[in-house]
């Protein structure tokens, strides 16, 4: 289906984007468009305007600031997949990026768009939690930083409020070893279950789960050393392809596989 009619505005700075958001409260930010445009074509969303933030110069790229890796929100999956800085200091992100969609999706889709969209089956949310990442959120009244633990609020819901935008992702450069294990839906290839495990330089292990429930969550039992019955089926999604019981079982299987690699 075609999308409903909308206005389109391309902006080149965060300030312009925020101003445009203020002027069109019914508008949506457009990053890679690979989640937003499909929803618009299905007419599940019909924003009056799109504010294209994908080419704001400061929001693209990956850099090291001291012991923090800073990723601009408009960095594409492809750039993450091929970043030598990330391969060296935060290999779980390139590992995940390579598992997202197909080359077309990876060339256009962005990490910021993915995190802001908070699809329950998206990959990055698991690693964000396991890495202990922080998200920089800006609005016309200034910037704030929230931890990944506070960022994912629910299904398609994040800490980004109306009039705000996600501009940067901050990741401690302290990965000792990491692994991501994804059990993909055979059709959509999104995660039915994705388990990320990161061992940090300070000796702690963080683990998180995506796909199985309404939003990504930490896996406290795994972090405490348990390897079975990590989650309760009662907390998980259920659909035609995978029941909650099956998902709960897969969490254990994927966790075991990930643990074997860290």
């Amino acid at each position, binding site marked *: 289906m*075609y999308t*409903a*009619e909308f206005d389109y505005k391309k902006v080149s700075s965060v300030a312009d984007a925020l101003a445009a958001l203020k002027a069109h409260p019914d508008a949506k930010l457009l990053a890679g468009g690979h989640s937003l445009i499909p929803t618009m074509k299905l007419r599940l969303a019909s924003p009056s305007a799109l504010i294209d933030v994908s080419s704001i110069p400061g929001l693209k790229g990956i850099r090291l600031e001291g012991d923090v890796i800073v990723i601009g929100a408009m960095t594409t999956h492809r750039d993450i997949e091929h970043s030598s800085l990330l391969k060296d200091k935060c290999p779980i992100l390139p590992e995940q990026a390579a598992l997202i969609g197909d080359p077309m999706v990876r060339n256009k889709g962005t990490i910021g768009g993915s995190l802001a969209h908070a699809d329950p089956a998206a990959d990055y949310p698991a690693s964000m939690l396991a890495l202990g990442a922080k998200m920089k959120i800006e609005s016309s009244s200034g910037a704030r930083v929230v931890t990944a633990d506070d960022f994912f609020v629910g299904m398609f819901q994040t800490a980004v409020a109306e009039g705000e935008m996600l501009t940067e992702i901050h990741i401690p450069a302290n990965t000792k070893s990491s692994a991501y294990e994804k*059990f993909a*839906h*055979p059709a*959509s290839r999104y995660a039915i279950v994705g388990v990320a495990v990161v061992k940090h330089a300070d000796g702690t292990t963080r683990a998180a789960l995506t796909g199985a429930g309404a939003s990504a969550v930490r896996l406290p039992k795994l972090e405490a050393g348990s390897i079975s019955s990590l989650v309760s089926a009662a907390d998980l999604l259920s659909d*035609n392809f*995978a*029941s909650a019981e099956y998902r709960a079982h897969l969490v254990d299987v994927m966790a075991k596989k990930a643990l074997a690699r860290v």
Partner: protein
Amino acid sequence: MAEKMFGKALKRVEDPRFITGTGNYTDDIAVHGMVHAAMVRSPYPHAKIKSIDSSAALALPGVIAILTGKDLVGAGINPIPTGWLLPDLKISAHHAIQPEEVNHVGDIVAAIIAETRAIAEDAVALVDVDYDVLESVSLGSTALAAGAVQVHPEAPGNLAFDWTIGDAAATDAEFAKADKIVKLELRNHRLVPNAIEPRASLAEYKRAGDEYTLHTTSQNPHIHRVMIGAFVMGIPEHKLRIVSPDVGGGFGSKIFQYPEEVIVLFAAKKVNRPVKWTARRSESFVSDAHGRDHETVAEAAVMNDGTLLALRVNTIANLGAYLTTFAPAVPTYLYGTLLNGTYKWKAIHAHVRGVYTNTVGVDAYRGAGRPEATYVVERIVSTVARELGMDPVDIRRKNFIQPSEFPYQTPVALQYDSGNYEPAMDMALEKLGYKALRAKQAEMRKQGKYIGIGVCTYLEACGLAPSALVGSLGAQAGQWESALVRVAATGVVEVLTGSHSHGQGHETAFAQVVADELQVPVEHVVLVHGDTARLPHGWGSYGSRSAPVGLSAITMACRKITDKAKKIAAHLLEASVEDMEHVDGKYQVKGVPERSKSFFEVALMAHLAHNYPADLEPGLEATHFYDPKNFVYPFGTHLAVVEVDADTGRTKLIRYVCVDDCGPIVNPLIVEGQVHGGVAQGMGQALLENTVYDASGQLVSGSYLEYTMPRADDMVQLEIGHTVTPSPHNPLGLKGIGEAGTIASTAAVANAVIDALEPFGVRHMDMPFTSEKVWQVIHASQLAQAADD
């Protein structure tokens, strides 16, 4: 001697235009003044239409007209007929736009005609339809049960037909003698065809002459012309031109005459502008005819030594809400007649009930009936082997029809004219290294790794024929094919064929045969198809008929050309026709190469007729209508190897060997391509694809987020072989290969999965073998084991 083209792996001449985006598909065509249609479809599986308020939609700038079912009925537009009549068939009117009641999600209630497609789609949301929602039914057996929701008043108990084949008493007698009876309940689930090009139609109407042209995605434009012209709209055939340009896949789904074609034709006249409609993918899911959907109980009577005695089959075939073009034929004559497979059953009896439900119509889908039959036969034969402790290969070898036994009359009407099953099976076993792999399988099981080997020794009947026979069975169509071969004055050859290519590579393979027959360079041959204004009447492509029927017609027409060319050359050379021979692209006096005329010289003289035989018509063209004497009977052995991950249930194909016998091969590259695609589709059914209607009648698998089409990484490199057993009754001995892959592979893969799951006590489970289903049975078996220990 010119190089023989038959058997050469020429690259397809059509590929450059497809690959570079210069094909000419219906949606690529834009004509002056064209407007666009969008359909308002029912969100309910079953409802009465109380009222339709289109005022808001009509008020939208750019909306030109809104059509309802009442408009069409009022204008005398008839319902769409079915093309195959069984005795006592209960037919319910299939209106292009429903005037009163909708019967499946996706049924059309109104059509918007607007200046742009975007406006038309905006307007769809503004049409306010007031429905009285009724209860619905989507499963065949539920629809047949007492007290079920009634879909159509014309079909009490939702029974469209009740059909049997075979000798019930003889079957009972064999069952009485049997050492053992093996019973299986099988569900052959529903599939969505998913041609890569969505359906599209563009209608033009010319007031001068009262003439219509419809460009549409059709596998058989003449069938569309007959149905729309003679039955639905009452347009004389010479005033209705159907053009089916490049078509991106059909798999059966583009055989049928669909509502949207009628709607755009009607609208084009009404608004006096050309009207185009192109399906969105989500519309394809709820409006392209679906495939399969059988519930079957099969019983085999066997002896302890593995002798197969008799087969009893009881099938409920879900036909959906309306009978589409060939729907009644598929679960009857294309299914029941194939239940004999490659074996010497002494008796077979099949009972099929066709049932209406509130779902999309079910009709021919690649293989059409034969995959369903093959699935029943090959699953039950493998199950018999398992229960008798025999190897699945041995039971087949023991029961095969032997080469000396042809022609072989089966208990279910068909007479197989040829076959030689063991060499194909042996070649496949050899390629796989069957014995060694069985040993490895046993070894792997000890380590908790589970592979399975599936055997399928299929047979299929394609090139449905002869016309008189299929007519006696209810077909409202002939099953011959036409060819017109026209040689231009310069010697280039135009071949007009009633066959239709929608991905099969006819432009290449057909040209190869013509090049050999006429001894002309293959580049001088051009194929024309898909246009009723240019071709003699033809019946199109489906049922793997293009090579055995269409190419036979072309061959015969070429031979008429050669006969005539000999006469012209003989005249020019002042020789007698009997002394002429056709060698090296020349017509020459036998053994005297210096006394010869080239094809060009002959063609030129045929057009000039300056120095010409007195009793011969000028011109060099020939038409042939070829009606085969029988079906053709391709066969072969497919062996699938799957691996099941016991932790997750994920099941993957890891090897696939296929040896097919499609007779002599015109172009091995094209044949391999057909096998690849067919195997991918059949494997897709077994492992991935699933069409799910939920309890409320909604199609919940109606997008690619849910519906799993096979992808490259789901496939393996096929290990392909061939044996060659020509058809005894057509000029080149050709058989079909378009569907063989699909017919064989579903059963081969299913048998492999059940074989892999043997250690978990699995005797049978229904497809598709998605990971949770497989894990659930493994898990249950492990729990039972744990409880035992």
